[in-house]
């Protein structure tokens, strides 16, 4: 028995070879199936870059124009593939430039492994050139982080990093490696991590909770499902569809849950939240059983908590025990992986339909259509609307494109009007709201799913926060389609200034450069549209292109996103205008 165990153990680990720490890093990544990484070199990470040069046939490194670009690209890659994104940066400013992306990945549960170089261990704490305490800085925004000072630690720590980043509720992990550890030689062997004793990736599911949830759902007259990104992360799209179809439950998505269920599915009743659809927001406060699946009741979803779904019994399917009762008190909490828990609950659910209840959603949709949607999609005014741009993109890509949006009004229009036919199609910075996310994230997304159309929809403000990544497109020839919706304003802040600050447009007016010339300077074909009659042709041309393409659409300057749940208001007090 013992020999058998030993044999199995030996099979799992590769035979030791003597290598330097830097080479070990690359070998670990290859063992983890990584063939694409993003980053930016610098002094403290040079030994690793030297190995990247030697291993370039096996591990492709994408040089971005800024570390923030690298990490957002890795996030885009991770979000469309479900695989862990890998980022390299040097010490000091290289490492601190990753922080925004790390925080973004933490709040949006994106698996990342960030590897930073650090000054040599004998210099730690001496304020050496480009020394910064990145482990200290990144602690509150990483799922786990660790500083390696000895080469022999590398295999175990990197294996652990990949296991932690991807398992359970995913998140970013940062590994900081001192320069001397990169040079130091040791006997390398690799064994994948399958367990960390103080960490339980997926909590145990209590079958009595599943039974209690099924009982509640079966007895509900007005059940309502809100699903989030947990469904996509857990690859439970099919299980969600089977469950809601069997129970006949109207289902709404959070912004990050979009595309887990086809937009046009008859039970899909839109998006909840501040700029979500009218019906699901209003009817949140009328349902009798609210079933939350892989979502975390973010404040942008709930509005005022003291008036949120108070009439409803709440069932929460969730992988992270810390999310239970964090914002909304649950009646039944079903802990576990949603793929597993939905599979277990569906046989206990009675076949059902709720036609009158579903009809209430349809009636309210009509109201929203008349007050808001028609004006967006078929505007009678001269100026172009963001809604019609999204609508035209949709129809010309048949809803098959990955839409990567930035942050602001255009993001809400993208989430509201995009038609998603397949999962992992909506990539956006939801929790952190990071302007500048979309352009680099779209580059990473395109590299993750090269056969899919990837369209970055960005405002003129956010575009200029990471515009330098056009250089990455130039160098890598990533065929990303870029649509800048230009209203010469920081539109979302301007909307709030209009509504809540008596139109005092403090620092929201943008004097913009000639975006066409800039794109052309990077060798990217570029078109500007300012009249409705040219929109369709321009988008057709963009979609037909097999290379990167830049489209600037000049948008009505003072358009607003509606409906809207004002801050502090109840979801049922959502405004249509």
């Amino acid at each position: 028995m013992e020999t058998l165990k030993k044999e199995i153990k030996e099979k799992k680990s590769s035979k030791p070879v003597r290598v330097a720490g830097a080479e070990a890093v690359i070998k670990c990544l290859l063992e983890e199936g990584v063939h694409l990484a993003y980053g930016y070199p610098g002094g403290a990470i040079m030994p690793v870059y030297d190995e990247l040069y030697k291993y370039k046939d096996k591990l492709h490194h994408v040089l971005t124009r800024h570390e923030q670009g690298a990490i957002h690209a890795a996030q885009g890659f991770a979000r469309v593939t479900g695989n862990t994104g890998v980022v390299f940066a040097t010490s000091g400013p290289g490492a601190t430039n990753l922080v925004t992306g790390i925080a973004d990945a933490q709040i949006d549960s994106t698996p990342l492994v960030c590897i930073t170089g650090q000054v040599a261990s004998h210099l730690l704490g001496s304020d050496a050139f480009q020394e910064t305490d990145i482990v200290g800085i990144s602690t509150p925004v990483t799922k786990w982080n660790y500083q390696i000072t000895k080469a022999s630690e590398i295999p175990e720590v990197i294996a652990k990093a990949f296991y932690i980043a991807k398992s359970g509720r995913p998140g970013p992990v940062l590994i900081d490696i001192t320069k001397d550890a990169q040079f130091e030689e040791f006997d390398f062997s690799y064994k994948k991590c399958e367990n960390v004793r103080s960490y339980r990736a997926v909590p145990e599911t209590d079958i009595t909770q599943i039974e209690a949830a099924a009982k509640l759902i079966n007895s509900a007259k007005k059940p309502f499902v809100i699903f989030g990104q947990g469904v996509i992360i857990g690859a439970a799209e099919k299980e969600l569809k089977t469950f809601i179809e069997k129970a006949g439950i109207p289902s709404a998505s959070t912004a990050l849950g979009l595309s887990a269920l086809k937009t046009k599915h008859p039970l899909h009743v839109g998006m909840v939240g501040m700029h979500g659809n009218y019906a699901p927001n209003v009817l949140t406060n009328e349902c009798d059983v609210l079933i939350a699946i892989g979502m975390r009741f973010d404040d942008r979803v709930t509005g005022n908590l003291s008036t949120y779904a108070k009439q409803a019994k709440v069932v929460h399917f969730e992988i992270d025990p810390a999310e239970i009762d964090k914002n909304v008190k649950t009646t039944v909490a079903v802990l576990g992986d949603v793929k597993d828990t939905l599979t277990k609950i569906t046989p206990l659910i009675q076949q059902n339909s709720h036609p009158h209840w579903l009809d209430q959603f349809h009636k309210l949709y009509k109201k929203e259509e008349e007050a808001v949607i028609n004006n967006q999609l078929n505007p009678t005014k001269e100026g172009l609307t963001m809604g019609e741009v999204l609508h035209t993109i949709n129809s010309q890509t048949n809803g098959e494109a990955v839409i990567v949006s930035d942050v602001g009004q255009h993001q809400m229009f993208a989430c509201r009007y995009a038609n998603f036919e397949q999962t992992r199609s909506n990539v956006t910075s939801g929790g952190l709201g990071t302007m500048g996310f979309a352009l680099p994230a779209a580059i990473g997304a395109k590299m993750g799913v090269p056969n899919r159309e990837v369209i970055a929809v960005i405002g003129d403000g956010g575009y200029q926060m990471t515009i330098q990544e056009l250089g990455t497109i130039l160098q890598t020839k990533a065929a990303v389609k870029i649509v800048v919706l230009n209203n010469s304003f920081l539109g979302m802040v301007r909307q709030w200034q209009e509504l809540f600050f008596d139109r005092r447009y403090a620092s929201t007016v943008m004097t913009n450069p000639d975006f066409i010339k800039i794109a052309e300077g990077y060798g990217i074909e570029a078109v500007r549209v300012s009249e409705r009659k040219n929109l369709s042709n321009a988008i057709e041309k963009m979609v037909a292109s097999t290379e990167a393409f830049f489209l600037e659409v000049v948008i009505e300057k003072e358009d607003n996103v509606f409906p809207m749940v004002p801050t502090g208001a109840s979801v049922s007090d959502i405004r249509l205008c």
Partner: protein
Amino acid sequence: MLIMEDKQKFTVSVYTENNIGLLNRLSAIFLKRHINIESMTVCESEIDHVHRFTFVVEVPEEQIRKVVGQLEKQIEVIRAFYHTEEEIIYQETAMFKLSTAYLYDEKIQNKLKLRRAHIVTITTSFFIIETTGLKEDIDRLYEKLKPYGLLQFVRSGRIAITRPKMAISELLQEFN
């Protein structure tokens, strides 16, 4: 607005792996929620290689429940618990440094007997008194010794043992 319950004192015990940087990670959870840590002790626990952090904070129970959830979520945290004052037996320790001129002062001698404090060191210039007890006991002795011109005063954070059983060893076995 959420109706916040009344604040009360909680002792939070966190069993962890013994790793560099964990203190930073745990204290950041309190910092993020603007919670002041009143006292903190870190030491090895009853289990080999497992460390125990003891935090004392004053917050509503609803909040401490969420904080403990976030503490427990950290990769290297094995388990975290919170307890009310009634659920634990706790002690603090303190040392007082006084001038040797007062060594034979009868009043001081009586105070030390009453408080069951004792002298741990005597030199030609100073002597050191040590005592262990509740926070209030130490406060009282401090007030009594203050008039003598304390040369130095130091007190520890709280250490606590719970009345309810905490099956950490069993839990660890479950993890393995």
